[in-house]
């Protein structure tokens, strides 16, 4: 479904600060895949997402969605079929607007015209969907989002993204800024929605056990490369210990420093 061919991303090209963020990436994402991505800081995980989402264009190589070349398509156009959730829970919703207004804007993708779609029928639909979050938000439709916690806002962003039926969802450490309890809730919701709606998804995580527990395929990244790609039964047999061992086998540098970070 998504194919990345020989993509390289270089920051500050031609200066002393030149930094090869991604080197010759080749990746095929199949429909229905749930891919987890791990790697230390600066490995290129978020750059990979920026590349897929269209925030940056590659120096070389191309990106194809269902056979169509989208390498030069701007981010807002790709957002029509790609849903993305950031680590910062504030990025998915508008703080100074009410919950129902936020849902009105996000339940459907694309430009909106001069009509007023928010009516009681919509409100009922929104509140029936909000019940799934089990947070009691359906009682607070008219409240400003400033009043909501990070966990509630992230869960909301997730729900609204699912309602807009994207072809691919990108989760960029979307639970990392939440407290452990909320992180668990949001992660379980994520898994539930992905299974229910058979969403093709990619999830960056710093938590190795989550990376192993969720999804059908795992990518390990280091220094701008995908160094390990495992799926199916081979992934099911993985443990945190085996992953660290694998990393050591593939790379002979500073993993110990990252170990604490990765294993949490």
């Amino acid at each position, binding site marked *: 479904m998504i194919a990345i061919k020989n993509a390289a991303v270089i920051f500050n090209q031609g200066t002393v600060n030149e930094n090869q963020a991604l080197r010759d990436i080749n990746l095929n994402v199949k429909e229905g895949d749930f891919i987890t991505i791990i790697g230390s800081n600066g490995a290129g995980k978020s750059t990979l997402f920026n590349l897929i989402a269209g925030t940056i264009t590659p120096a070389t190589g191309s990106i194809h969605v269902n056979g169509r070349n989208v390498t030069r398509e701007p981010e*807002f156009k790709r*957002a029509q079929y790609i849903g993305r959730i950031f680590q910062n829970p504030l990025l998915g*919703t*508008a703080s*100074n607007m009410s919950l129902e207004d*936020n849902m009105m804007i996000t339940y459907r993708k694309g*430009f*909106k015209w*001069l009509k007023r779609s928010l009516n009681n029928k919509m409100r009922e639909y929104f509140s029936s969907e909000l019940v799934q979050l089990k947070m009691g938000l359906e009682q607070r439709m008219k409240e400003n989002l400033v009043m909501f916690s990070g966990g509630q806002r992230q869960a909301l962003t997730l729900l609204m993204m699912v309602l807009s039926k994207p072809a691919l969802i990108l989760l960029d450490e979307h639970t990392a800024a939440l407290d452990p309890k909320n992180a668990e809730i949001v992660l379980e919701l994520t898994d539930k929605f992905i299974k229910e709606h058979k969403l093709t998804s990619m999830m960056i995580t710093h938590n190795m056990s989550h990376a192993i527990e969720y999804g059908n395929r795992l990518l390990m990244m280091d220094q701008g490369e995908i160094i390990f790609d495992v799926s199916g039964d081979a992934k099911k047999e993985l443990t945190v210990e085996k992953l660290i061992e694998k990393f050591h086998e593939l790379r002979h540098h500073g993993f110990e420093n990252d170990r604490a970070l990765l294993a949490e």
Partner: protein
Amino acid sequence: MIEAILVEGLIYGIMVLGVFITFRVLDFPDLTVDGSFPLGAALMVQGILLGMNGWLALLIAFIGGVIAGVVTALIHNHLKVPNLLAGILTMTMLYSINIRILGNRANVPVLDQETLLSDVSSRLSGVVPDEYIMLLFFVVVALVIKLLVDMFFRTDLGMTIGAMGNNEQMIISQGINPKTLKTIGLGLSNGLVAVSGAFAAQYLGFADVGLGQGIIISGLASVMIGEFLIMKSNKIGILTLCALAGSVLFHAVMYVGRYYGYVIDMTPNDLNLIKGLLIIVLLIITQARKFNMATFKAMVQK
């Protein structure tokens, strides 16, 4: 005196609604206003002099303002010029354009012409006491425009524009081009400002190329005074009402300064200084309020 303050406040209130849209809803400090206000005045006056229907001339003034706003948006969006500079560019170019529209003159009177206002006056004369005709007319005009703006921001499009001012990434993630929304918002805002300028020209009896000088400061001061009237609200109807009320209050202050300022040896030339100082004082009070709220909260938590 009260009628004059109210009428002035309401005429300029339409401009304040425009400034409110850019500064508060779009989060785009737009200085085009200093050019689009006299642009509206110039188009209106020229329309009247050509014998056009008053409402048609008003519509043309509105469209002129929209175009001015769109030009600023295009400069900002496509040339990656910072928003302040984009507005200054358009404003500077408009200065020449406005003089052109006025037929290479800096000031054109319409005192002896049939204007929209004189038309309304003659129709309502006898029905309403003469001194209240203008007040009644502008209360209706300002409220209709306010309600239209409210309606716009309750539509799906209006809500997305509101959300963009708050969180641009969210709008991109929704598959919407923020550039388009900025263009629409700036167009609408400057259209309103031009309408305000068109009414001001008829009320004052002339169009002057310097009519817009410092108007953005008046608008901003009015928005800020209006925000003082209420604690935070996210209801567009309340926010626009506050903008109008802020404009009336601001003009009351200016009126007092203009007519009673001589007591402390103040001249009309000092008004711009007063406007600036007013904004600074308002900013200081806002900061102090925030600080007090923060210390208050901290104390409660302890």
